[in-house]
Structure formats: C-alpha cells, structure tokens
C-alpha cells in the first residue's frame, strides 16, 4: 500500500531503556505525529533480557513499553491514525505484543492490531547455522567463535526495515521488533508510506540518516550538546524530543514540539550526525550503506533544520550479529573523602583495601581506583585538579568469582571508621556484584536470516 502523502512526521520518544518515561506521551500529545518510534536496545541490553527470559519464558522484553502504551490510551483513541514502531520486543517480541494487547483490551481498544517482528534471535539455531557454514568470527580480530561458544548468553542479527513494512501492510498499528538496526525504525514507515523500492539507495540512505539523527531522543534537540553554556538562555528542563518530517523525495526536516526546552539548530544536529559512527562515508545498516560525509544542514526557521544531500550505496550482503558471553563478575562502590589532602587520604583508603585483600589472597583479578573530582574521568588527558577539597574514590573490580567481588565490596564501608579522617558518603545498601558480559560482534549471510511478522489479534488476549 502506498499512501498519497508527500511528507510524514515521525517522532522518537525514547533513546534507550531508562529514558524519560513520560516523553513518548508528551511528544505524541504535542507533535501531530504520524508515527511514534521508541528505541530501547543498547548493544548489551539483549543479554540482560535473555537472562530474564531464561528465568521466565514470558519475559525478556522491555517492560517499560506496556507502561508507556497504558499512558497513551487516551491518545490512541483521539489520534486514530497514530502508529507506534518500537524495538521493545527485545528477546521476546511475541510476549511483549501480548502484554501490550492486554493493556489495549483493558482499555476497550482491542481493535488495535499489534504485530511482533521476530527472526533476529540466532541462539536456538546456532548448531544449524554452523553446519551451514557460518563461523561467527569476531568482526575485528577474526578470533574464532569457538573460544566463547560455551559462554554465549545471546546472539542476535540486526534486522532491517522489511519486517516493519510487512507488519504495517498487514494492518498493524503497533509494531514490536527485537534486535533491528536503530535507523530501520524510521526506514520502515518511510518505505511503507512512500512505496520506495528496496534498491533506491539514496532514498533509503535519506531515511537512514533521519533515523540515525532521532534515534537517541533528546541528543539531537539540545541534550548532550557541547555548545551548551550555563549562562546562556538555554534551558533543558522540559526538553522537547525530536520530530522528523520526511519527504517522499528524500531529505527531512528535524524539529521539536513548540514551547518545549532545548534547541534544534545546525550545531545540535551536526553533533548527533557524528555520534557513534565509524567511516562516515559508509554507515552500514541492513537496508543501505549511507554516506553522511556530504550531508548538508540548513536552518530554515527557529528549531527547524533541513537535512539534505544524503547519498546511499548498495546494502551489505551480510547482517551484523551481536553476541554476548558471560565473563565473570564485577562490582563498584564509592567513598567520599573530604578535607585537606583529600587525595592523600583517598590514597590511604586504596592502599588499605589492596593490602588487606592481598594478605588474604582475595585481591580480584582486575582492580581499579578512580579519584573523581581530580580529572580522572579521562585520566591523564583532562586538566588536573591538584588539591581539591574533596574526592570521590571509586573502587571497581572484575573477577571470575562472584565471592571475590562481594568480598572486595565489603571493604569500603569499614574505612569510614578505620580509615583516615574525612571519609564519608557511605550510606544505603552495600553495592552489589553484577555479571559481566563480553561483547562479540560478528556477521551472518542474509540468506540465513528470516524475519517473521506475526499480527496478534488483541481480542484473543482479552479472554486470556
């Protein structure tokens, strides 16, 4: 289906799992959107979700999303054309779709169709894929995957936009995917609405560039902006989340709802264009190889920036695969050390922890101490503070044994009474050890991955 629209408005109300919970609702209320996208999955989020699904087969998705849908019930009713596209499905898009349908049923919105797009989870198919010749070598150092095979906790292909287009064509109003290239959340609706062909590389690149610009939410509307200044009239309290107006001929305008804080100008948009990229001439997604290097930005009005000159080339013949594997445990805790010679006092704390643990042979394999407030955040590079009135001492460790990490974390609190003077800031619960996940980027041939779109009838969930 191709609509007769010349432009569509897509707003992104989430840049990661944990982003402002009311942003999606506020953006949809103010944004006059055709589509709301919500991006939740960082590189390692899926392994956390895999762990949750292991413990409960109905979990493993971003539980914020059904909560967001509940907050938007009135809007879904008053804006019958509004559609939502999200990767909240994580390791379990079908269960997420079921949970969302349940919310819709409870709100007498059971006519809304919810689709789950799956096929990205490769872990159950690993033996079969290896038998078919896939090796999953490490993308950068070509290490064989057999090195970590026994410790794998997740393996997902980054899917492209095709599954979303298929779900929308099937009539879905809410589309829930698992792992998918972030920018594909925008490419999907663009291809569906404008009827672009899958080899119109410049147009696909244009939607991909747009998706990249809005995928991190408020990072394009003034958040994180290095040109921000505390004495300028540059408020961020009620920052507006981004809206992209995509044109059927390619290109877009980035803007935000009127009356919100933050800023959309060529500088804030430039900073998001360069965010987390490698070679700007070849930003690879399963849909296209987009070229950001010649993208041009023009301020056409207050808080409106036109994005033009997006070019694209043939998409890669492989999908990127993101694997994670168990690599022991880590834990971190902090102490505040105040007073004259704060650094010297903090050093004495470090020394006490190290020597006590060495004596009992329980010093973790990897230990680090950071003296926050002295310039240690980018150690040796930032301008140093030689004699600060206070220091946050951050102690952090990693080890194959959870017991060793727990033992390490016990060492912090006693320094309040047994350490040098001025040690404070140790209240609340003892910090906890957490599993460490290694990241293993790899690839797989396209023909070995099949995305499926399943449209749920919310009515079935009403009875269940």
């Amino acid at each position, binding site marked *: 289906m191709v609509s007769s629209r010349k432009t569509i408005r897509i707003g992104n109300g989430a840049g990661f799992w944990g982003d402002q919970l009311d942003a999606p609702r506020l953006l949809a209320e103010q944004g006059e959107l055709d589509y709301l996208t919500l991006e939740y999955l960082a590189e390692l989020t899926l392994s956390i979700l895999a762990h949750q699904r292991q413990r409960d087969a109905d979990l493993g998705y971003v539980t914020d999303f059904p909560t967001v849908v509940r907050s938007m019930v009135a809007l879904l009713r008053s804006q019958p054309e509004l559609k939502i596209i999200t990767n909240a499905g994580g390791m379990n898009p079908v269960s997420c779709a079921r949970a969302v349908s349940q919310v819709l049923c409870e709100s007498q919105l059971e006519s809304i169709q919810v689709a789950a797009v799956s096929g990205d989870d490769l872990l159950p198919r690993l033996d079969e894929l290896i038998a078919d010749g896939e090796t999953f070598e490490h993308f950068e150092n070509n290490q064989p995957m057999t090195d970590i095979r026994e410790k794998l906790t997740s393996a997902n292909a980054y899917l492209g936009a095709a599954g979303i287009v298929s779900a929308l064509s099937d009539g879905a109003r809410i589309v829930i995917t698992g792992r998918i290239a972030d920018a594909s959340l925008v490419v999907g609706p663009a291809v569906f609405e404008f009827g672009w062909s899958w080899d119109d590389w410049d147009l696909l690149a244009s939607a991909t560039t747009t998706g990249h610009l809005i995928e991190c939410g408020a990072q394009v509307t003034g958040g994180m902006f290095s040109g921000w200044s505390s004495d300028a009239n540059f408020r961020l309290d009620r920052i507006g989340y981004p809206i992209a107006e995509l044109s059927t001929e390619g290109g877009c305008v980035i803007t935000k709802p009127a009356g919100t804080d933050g800023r959309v100008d060529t500088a804030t948009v430039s900073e998001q264009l360069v965010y987390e990229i*490698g070679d700007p001439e070849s930003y690879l997604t399963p849909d296209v190889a987009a070229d950001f290097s010649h993208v041009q930005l023009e301020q056409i009005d207050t808080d409106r920036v036109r994005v033009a000159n997006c070019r694209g080339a043939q998409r890669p013949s492989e999908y990127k695969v993101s694997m994670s594997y168990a690599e022991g445990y880590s834990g971190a805790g902090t102490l505040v050390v105040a007073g004259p010679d704060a650094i010297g006092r903090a050093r004495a704390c470090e020394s006490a922890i190290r020597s006590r643990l060495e004596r009992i042979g329980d010093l973790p394999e990897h230990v680090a101490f950071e003296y926050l407030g002295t310039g240690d955040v980018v150690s040796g590079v930032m301008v140093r503070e030689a004699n600060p009135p206070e220091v946050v001492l951050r102690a952090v460790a990693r080890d194959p044994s959870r017991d060793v990490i727990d033992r390490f974390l016990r060492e912090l609190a006693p320094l309040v009474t047994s350490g040098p003077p001025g040690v404070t800031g140790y209240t609340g619960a003892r910090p906890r050890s957490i599993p460490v996940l290694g990241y293993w980027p790899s690839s797989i041939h396209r023909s070995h991955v099949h995305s499926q779109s399943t449209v749920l009838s919310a009515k079935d969930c009403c009875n269940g």
Partner: protein
Amino acid sequence: MGSGSANGRVLHLHDIAHARSGDKGNHANIGVIAWTSVGFEFLDDFLTAEVVADFLRPLNPHRVERFRMPGIGAYNFVLHNVLAGGASRSLLIDSQGKALASALLQMEVPTPDEWEQMLKPYE
C-alpha cells in the same frame, strides 16, 4: 601563524569547534565540528590523527583514524581499542567514552592570523 596566543589570548579547541563522543564496541569516536568554514580548513592541517592520538596518549589508543565530513565541516576520529574492553568489561566510570569530547576540546591550539574568523559566531 603565531603560536598559542592572540592579543594575549590562548586559543583552545573549544573556541573554534564543538564535539561529541561515544562508543562502538571496544572503540570510541569523537566527531569534531568546526564552528566556521575557516576553522574547518585550519583543522584540516592542524588536527591530524597523529595530533589527536598524541593528546589522548594516556588512554593508549591502538590506532586513530580520521575521516573528513565536508558537508557539515567536521572530522570524525575513531579511536581503536581505547575503552579497555568496551562498555561492559571496562572498569572505568566513562566506559562509553561520553567524556572524551569534553577532554579533547580542552586542547590548546595554535593561533593563526585569521583566528577571529574561526570563533563561534554570535547568536
């Protein structure tokens, strides 16, 4: 080209450019965007991959690559293996490299004759 001061003023990278950094697996990137086209030309010669690698030497980058983005007047630096194992394994507080841009912008830069044309334009 003078060196380090203009009418007694010391020039820093943040006077002539803005930047954003983040992570990509074990690597980090810093995109440096010149405020003006004069600044973009100046940085072409001055802010080489070697200069950036040297400034960030304490972080032991394995390799630094530089890419030009003439459309927006920027240079993208990819810092290989700088995050000590990446977002999950790194012990450091800035395991995702978010603060690298702020650190790089503290760099002192030489002061060419046309330095005033490189400053952030008035709003």
